[in-house]
């Protein structure tokens, strides 16, 4: 088992493009760290540098305390699970798994035992004589894992192993992979673009954007205390609601004006966020959908600030219900948000009407309909504030 330390790691491609910039990160022994970010953010490149499949252009990489920049991939004692599984098509499952051991010239008996042991671990016993083309996606994925596990390496690297599976299977496999990793206790770096995977699987999550590390912390911290607009918009589904608001001084404390509504900011928040310095200035205000609640089944509003809303759209998902309305505050447009959220909502808003589309959660069986006017309860203790220029969270 080994820890991994990236120290100012960077990757420059021949055309001058820096896919990864100054990435510094430590992954502790036996930790499962998830590298997450949108396509093109450099997460796979970073992973491949750890693997040794890409040369490192800048910085130092240490595995188990040893500097491995110039060590070939085969000598790093790392196993990798590829996005498209990369199973050897002409070999059986057993041969695929055993391949690396055969190369190390282990005795046949030992190989057979270890293959069987690995197969049992992954539920592949029945499939050992099949060829990859006879396997389903989930089965192929497990074979790919078996191939990695059998080597008992110091480090596992996984490159979006679940992205080619159906949604249901993905949910199932997430748990399996996590359990396996805990059981084997191997240091693991897991790359994904799916923030749900990141949140559920990682001991810690590292958010990347355009080659740069945005934040690395436990899932809960990344969720509750995003360090900038990008992380705020990227983590959490449905994404955080964001709009421009002006900080004002009120009689009893700090207020923030969002469109026609003026919200009192709890003193604690105002202090931590240093809002005094922002009086009279415009910030970007964020509130997650689950902190914007519709009235409960018996009509009683939840606590918090009551925000009047006219419902534009309803999405009933069965387990939850999302209601969309337009807040008459100016939208927080920025490249970061667009990239984080996929840009959709913002663009639609600009076409339909003035204001910012906001998303609130209602009781799953609520009878709310398009056109209804309701009061949505905003939990002001969950307000986020960001600097419109630097895009960082205030007070950080």
């Amino acid at each position, binding site marked *: 088992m080994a820890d991994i330390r990236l120290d100012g790691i960077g990757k420059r491609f021949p055309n001058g493009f820096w896919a990864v910039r100054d990435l510094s990160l430590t992954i502790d022994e036996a930790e499962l760290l998830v590298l997450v970010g949108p396509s093109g953010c450099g997460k796979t490149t970073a992973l491949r540098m750890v*693997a040794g*499949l890409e040369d490192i252009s800048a910085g130092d990489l240490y595995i188990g305390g040893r500097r491995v920049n110039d060590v070939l*991939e*085969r000598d790093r004692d*790392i*196993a*990798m699970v*590829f*996005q*498209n599984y*990369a*199973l*050897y*098509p*002409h*070999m059986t499952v057993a041969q695929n798994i055993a*391949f*690396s051991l055969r*190369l*190390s010239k282990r005795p046949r008996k030992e190989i057979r035992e270890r293959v069987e042991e690995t197969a049992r671990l992954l539920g592949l016993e029945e499939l050992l004589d099949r060829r990859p*083309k006879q396997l389903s996606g989930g089965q192929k994925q497990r074979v790919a894992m078996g*191939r990695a596990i059998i*080597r008992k390496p110091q480090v596992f690297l996984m490159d979006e192993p679940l992205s080619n599976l159906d949604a249901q299977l993905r949910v199932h496999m997430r748990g399996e992979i996590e359990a396996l990793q805990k059981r084997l206790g191997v240091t693991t770096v897991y790359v994904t673009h799916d923030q749900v995977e990141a949140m559920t699987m990682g001991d810690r999550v590292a958010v990347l954007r355009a080659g740069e590390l945005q934040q690395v912390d436990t899932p809960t911290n990344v969720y509750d205390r995003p360090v900038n607009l990008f992380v705020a918009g990227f983590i959490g589904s449905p994404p955080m609601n964001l709009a421009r608001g002006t900080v004002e001084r009120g009689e009893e404390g700090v207020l923030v004006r969002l469109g026609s509504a003026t919200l009192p900011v709890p003193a604690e928040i105002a202090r931590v966020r240093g809002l005094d310095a922002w009086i009279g200035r415009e910030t970007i205000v964020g509130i997650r959908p689950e902190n914007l609640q519709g009235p409960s089944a018996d009509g009683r509003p939840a606590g918090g600030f009551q925000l009047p809303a006219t419902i534009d759209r309803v999405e009933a998902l069965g387990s939850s219900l999302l209601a969309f309305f337009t807040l008459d505050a100016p939208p927080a447009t920025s490249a970061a948000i667009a990239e984080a959220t996929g840009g959709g909502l913002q663009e639609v808003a600009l076409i339909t009407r003035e204001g910012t589309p906001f998303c609130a959660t209602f009781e799953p069986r609520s009878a709310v309909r398009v056109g209804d006017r309701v009061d949505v309860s905003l939990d002001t203790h969950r307000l986020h504030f960001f600097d419109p220029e630097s895009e960082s969270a205030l007070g950080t």
Partner: protein
Amino acid sequence: MSTASATVEPRVRRPRRRRATGAQVLKYAALLFAALVVLLPVYVLLVASFKTGAEAEPSRAWALPDVWSLDAWRQAWNGEQYGLLPFLENSFKLVIPATLISTFLGSLNGFVLSRWRFPGADLVFLFLLFGMFIPYQAVMIPLTQIFIDVDFPEGIPRLVFAHIVYGIPITTLIFRSYYATIPEDLIEAARMDRAGMLRTYWSVVLPVSAPAFVVTAIWQFTSIWNDFLFAVFIVDDPEQWPVTVALNNTTGSFVTPYNVQMAAALIASLPTLVVYILLGRYFMRGLMAGALKG
């Protein structure tokens, strides 16, 4: 593992189900006419080859034989004067080693240049590829001189060597195109499994190379068997001539009765025609690989 996308034959679309319109009829007529024109020489060859010497007279050229005879065939096969048999043997002795070796070389080159690259690999590829386009006449003289200087075994061995060397461009081309369709992550997985270059070639790449081997081997077989230029420059000794040169000499002389000439042409073409009929699909893929480079 499906066949290389670079060498796949055009997929056949089912013909639209509609009644034969005038346009369809015209189309068929044109296609049939073209087919007839293309097959015309074959008709002539076959018809002439089955005629006896007596019937082999210019004015009867287009008519079917009155008497079907294998006499011309016998003469062209192992007749004392015109028999091609010893030359067929020479051709086989040439084609088989040359095809095997040049194909194998192409496979190794194609693998390295597409999946185990080094800086400048593309330049090296271009460097090799250009060799396919040179007029071979330009190098035949110095080539034979080199053979003489190093005392290379005369006759067929020299020809084998020449075909191996000048076959490098096309065989490398075909394999490189084919191997480009092997997913890179397969090679990376092998590397992560601690396989080195040769190991990766042997255990991961070679087992899935069958289609490319077939295509290349067939293409090389046909090209080398049909070659005339190299043979006529490199092989001095008439006893070592491959069948193309022998054919040219047999049929070039005006003394040879033309039924024998035709039979000889057919015999000389038999192996490649058989290959074409049985394995035409692969033949065409080799053909396309050479052109789809462009």
